[in-house]
Structures are given as C-alpha cells and as structure tokens.
C-alpha cells in the first residue's frame, strides 16, 4: 500500500472527494488539515503550481487536482472500481466529471453563495442542474448501480447544496424541479462511506452560517 497522506480541508467538497475514493477502496491514509489562511510549507512544496488542496502524497510523490487524484487512486488500487471498463463509458464519466467541475461548480457557488440575491445566476445554475437531472434518468447513481467517479465529483450537489439551502432559504435544488437529483442525493448520502467522509451536518451548518454572515451577497 505504501504511505498515503492527504493534505486537505475537511469542509471542502474537493478534499472530501479524495477521502471518499480512498475509503471506498479501503486505503488507510493520514489526513493533514490545512489552514488555508496560513498554508503549510509542505503543501506549498507539494503543490507549487496551484498552492491548493487537496494534494495526495503517495510514497512521497505528490499529486494535485482532485480529478487527477481520483484517476490515480483508481489506477493504483484496483478494488471497488470507480470507473467503468468500457472506454466509451469511461469517456462519458470523464466528460460529466469535467462538466460538473468546470461549469456546475462555479455556477452553483455563484447562485448559492457569492451572488445569492441574483435571480439570473439562480436560473443559470438551474439550467445546468437540469442537464444532470436528465443524465440521471433511469439510474440510481451517475455510475449506474454503484457510486462512481461522477457521483464522487458531484458531492457538493449531494450534500453541501442542501445544507446551504437550509440556511439561506434558496429554492434551487427542489424535489419538484429535480426529482432525480434529490433521489440520487438521498441514495448517495445513505452510503456509510460517503457519510464518514463528510463533516457532520451540524459542523458544516455552523460553518456555512458564519461564512455567510461574514460575506454578504454581492
């Protein structure tokens, strides 16, 4: 197995993605909680290009960027695969992961957090969620019968978004508009491994409340 370390922040969905994948594969690791306002010299040494979390360090070899880390975990530890075997299905999983990371995440953060009074931002986020809603049609998880890469990458939608909505009253991800996504979120959070990888909801709610009051909407 070798020595595995994760430099992360427990309340970050990006950091949790790495923990979910490692736990699914039964890999033991040390978690080093970073203070983002005072990044450790080790983090800066391991990720000099972006200086961000998460970073996976395996036998002293650092890997940065959560999607890159997830693929590395998949290729290094073969048990409980998170990517399908078929090349076309793999390409689709990579496509949806990239879509969530590059389009959905910025739009959701804008609508739910940064510009939470902005109706247009909420509409744009809803349009992107609709695409994911359609992709889930007939499936328990994005990965099919089991949790896969796309489900892991969608963790913000599965957990954080609901909690933010609880605090702000935002009605973006609702059962009426997104029955598939809400059902998926329920299934996703039913996994004990997923639950173990996330900070407890009361901690996260407290963090969300204090962040929101310190950062008024633009």
């Amino acid at each position, binding site marked *: 197995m070798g020595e595995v370390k994760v430099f992360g922040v427990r309340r970050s969905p990006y950091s949790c993605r790495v923990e979910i994948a490692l736990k699914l594969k039964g890999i033991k690791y040390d978690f080093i909680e970073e203070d983002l306002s005072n990044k450790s010299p080790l983090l800066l040494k391991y990720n000099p*290009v972006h200086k961000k979390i998460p970073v996976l360090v*395996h036998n002293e*070899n650092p*890997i*940065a*960027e959560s*999607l*890159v*880390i997830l*693929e*590395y975990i998949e*290729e*290094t530890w073969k048990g409980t695969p998170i990517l399908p075997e078929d*090349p*076309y299905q*793999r*390409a689709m999983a*990579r*496509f949806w992961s*990239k*879509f969530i990371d590059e389009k959905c995440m910025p739009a959701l953060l804008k609508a739910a957090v940064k510009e939470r009074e902005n109706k247009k931002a909420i509409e744009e986020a809803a349009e992107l969620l609709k*695409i994911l809603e359609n992709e889930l049609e007939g499936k328990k998880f994005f990965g099919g019968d089991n949790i896969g890469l796309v489900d892991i990458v969608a963790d913000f939608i599965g957990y954080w978004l609901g909690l933010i909505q609880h605090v702000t009253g935002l009605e973006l991800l609702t059962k009426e508009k997104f029955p598939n996504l809400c059902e998926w979120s329920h299934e996703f959070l039913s996994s004990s491994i997923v639950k173990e990888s996330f900070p407890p909801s009361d901690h996260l709610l407290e963090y969300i409340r204090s962040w929101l009051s310190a950062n008024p909407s633009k």
Partner: protein
Amino acid sequence: MGGSEVILLDFWASMFGMRVRIALAEKGIEYEFKEEDLVNNRSPFLSKMNPVHKKIPVLIHNGKPVCESLIAVQYIDEVWKGKAPLLPSDPYQRAQARFWGDFIDKKVYDHGAKIWKTKGAEQEESKKGLIECLKLLEGELGDKPYFGGESFGYLDIALVPFYSWLYTYETFGKFSVEAECPTLIGWVKRCMDKESVSKSLADPLKVHDLVLLLKKKHGLE
C-alpha cells in the same frame, strides 16, 4: 480495427482539434474530417453531437460522440491499444501528464486568447501570464526530448498545437517565445519532425489572418 467508422468534427484552426488529429495520426487511424464553419454558423449536426457545449472537436466513433479534446485523446489511447501508447504506463507518470494537460487547458489557452482579444494593461498581464506558464512547462520538460520522456505522448500532444497560435500571440503581444523559452522551441521543432504533428498543425500565418478577420468581425481592433 478494421470496419470501424471514425469521424472528427473539427475546425482547421482549433488547437484542441489538432490534438485529436495528432492522436489519430499517431495510431494510424483512418477517419473522415468534417469541417465546422465556426466563423459563421454552428451546424445542427454539431449541436446534436455535442448538445451540452456545442463545441468542436467531437470524435465520433461508430456513431457515438466523444467530446473534450483530452478526453478524446485518452479514449483513442484506450481503444487503439496496440500501437503508439500515448499515456505513460506508470500511474504516477500518468497523473503528472494529466495534471499538466489540465494546467494547459486552464491557463495557457485563456492567457493566449486575451493577448489578441485585449489591449493595454490587460494584454500586458496576459502576456506575462502566458510566458510564466510556458516557463513552468519548460521546467517540466527539463532535458527530456519529449514531455513523455523518450517517446512523444499525451502531454506533447496537449501542448504542441499551441505552436500554430504562437506567431499570433507574439505579433499582438510583441514578444518572442524563443527568446523567453528556447528549450521549448527546441522541443517544438523536434515534434514538427514527426509527420503526425506537421500534418495536423495549422499554418501559423493562416491563423494570424483568421484572428485579423475575427477581430474585425467582433469589433476588437
């Protein structure tokens, strides 16, 4: 893999399309090149093959579309396994290749586009940003012949198409990449010796003419 149908929906000047062309050429795959006229109209066929982004390149294999250039390059590597491996076999090397490919997509492209789309301080900032990125990549190359080591691979494919656009960036930004990153230009020349690369890259002067046209069209002069 005889009998399989491969179509590439592309635009001649796209550095992302060029990546897929190079990968297909490396593997010796025959395909139909379908040109999208991005200057004027997106075709209904493109909207059908890539409904989410409506962008090229789209690799269509036996009727099934694969979107996003680096995803398509990985797909090509996984389907046509027997010849010219594009990604390294070691998982850590693969992770490094993917990391830098992602870096190129996020940083190099945006800085480059801003150099010809903007003026003044914004342009100057983008030029500095681009040079910084290229220097980081030059550091990653080190004294290896290719980013992939002894063999040309994924990361070489991810970056080399930007060579078609360097003349444009240099002309509008008023700088020389060779002066800033000589090792990188040495690497470009080595890549251009490969037929898969020289036949896939667009003529830098034609790209420059296209940009002049686009600037005029969008009132960016």
